[in-house]
């Protein structure tokens, strides 16, 4: 029964698959980012971690640090949502590169926000595409929604989604490097039945 799936019970094997999904998805996202910025972008091997709610903010660099959160709904064979989180200054640096102008003094201007949304759109779109190709399942992202706030406040949304089924959150950390290291985090939140569908499509039914 799908309701009984708990992330705590994810076996090493499933975990490896999720890691691999994380890897390939992030690889695609990096390529998309490089194309968009027309520059070379490297990526370190992504880390996939299952973390307790109380630890996740600390692991990601501090509960109160300002981050950009981009949140999209996913429709199609797989339903759920995906979040991409980027430290605020990393976001500003990407936006300034994309627009070829220096970042605004404080916060994000309207135009920077829409550029950031576009970046989020492309990165998460590339990510979902690779998952879709690997699983042969259709995944259609919605228009992205963006908020800039304290990390834990942004994280509360995926944490609550994970909280419905367990007490941990699955985090995919990706370090992009152009001239500086940019820490990006993907959080995939497939609906319960989609989670088993996805693993099933990879030949590992729950």
């Amino acid at each position, binding site marked *: 029964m799908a*309701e*009984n799936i*708990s992330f705590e019970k994810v076996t090493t094997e499933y975990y490896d698959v999720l890691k691999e999904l994380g890897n390939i998805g992030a690889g695609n996202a990096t390529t998309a980012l490089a194309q968009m910025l027309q520059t070379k972008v490297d990526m370190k091997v992504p880390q996939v971690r299952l973390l307790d*709610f*109380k*630890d*996740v*903010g600390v692991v990601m660099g501090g*509960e*109160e640090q*300002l981050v950009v*959160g981009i*949140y999209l*709904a996913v429709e199609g064979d797989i339903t*759920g*949502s995906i979040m991409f989180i980027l430290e605020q200054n990393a976001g500003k640096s990407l936006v300034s590169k994309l627009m070829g102008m220096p970042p605004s003094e404080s*916060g994000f201007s309207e135009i920077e926000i829409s550029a950031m949304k576009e970046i989020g759109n492309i990165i998460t779109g590339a990510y979902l595409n690779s998952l879709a190709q690997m699983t042969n399942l259709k995944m259609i992202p*919605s228009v992205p*929604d963006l*908020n*800039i*706030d*304290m*990390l*834990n*406040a*942004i*994280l*509360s*949304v995926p*944490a*609550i*989604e994970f*909280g*419905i*089924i*367990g*007490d941990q959150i699955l985090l995919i950390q990706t370090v992009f490097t152009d001239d500086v290291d940019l820490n990006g985090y993907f959080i995939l939140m497939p*609906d319960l039945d989609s989670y088993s569908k996805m693993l099933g499509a990879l030949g590992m039914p729950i």
Partner: protein
Amino acid sequence: MANIVKVGMADLNVCKSPEGITTLGLGSCVGICIRDPVAKVGGLAHAMLPDSRQIENNSNRAKFADTGIEDLVKKILAMGGRKGRLEAKIAGGAQMFAFQNKSDMVRVGERNVEASKRKLRELGIPLKAQDTGLNYGRTIVFYPETGDLVIRSAGKPEKTI
């Protein structure tokens, strides 16, 4: 500066004056602060979801507003608080993103606030103040000594309720 006890997501704890108690970056979660102004003991629960009865996996009682408040009250009473004297303040319950597509996620911040108020009413604990809703995160620090609840948000002046 007096020691400040830290409470994580889906967690709760208590403290004794002059200590304060804090939780960082409440988003859609709700922070429930309760104190006994005479015994000067109090505590904070950081709840993620409104109702433990709607969720199958509900073993972590601090995760829910209803069971979190029950357990918080028990802990405060165990530290010398008295039932008739307790009072509460709540903060958080924001809607961080415009859409939240899952049924469990729809208006979850608002529902966390409603569930907290319902539980406090049921236990006869008066709600002295609240700072809830809207679309931004809140770090809160609660002092059982004075009952002050200090709220910090990104790009906004600090306020005390």
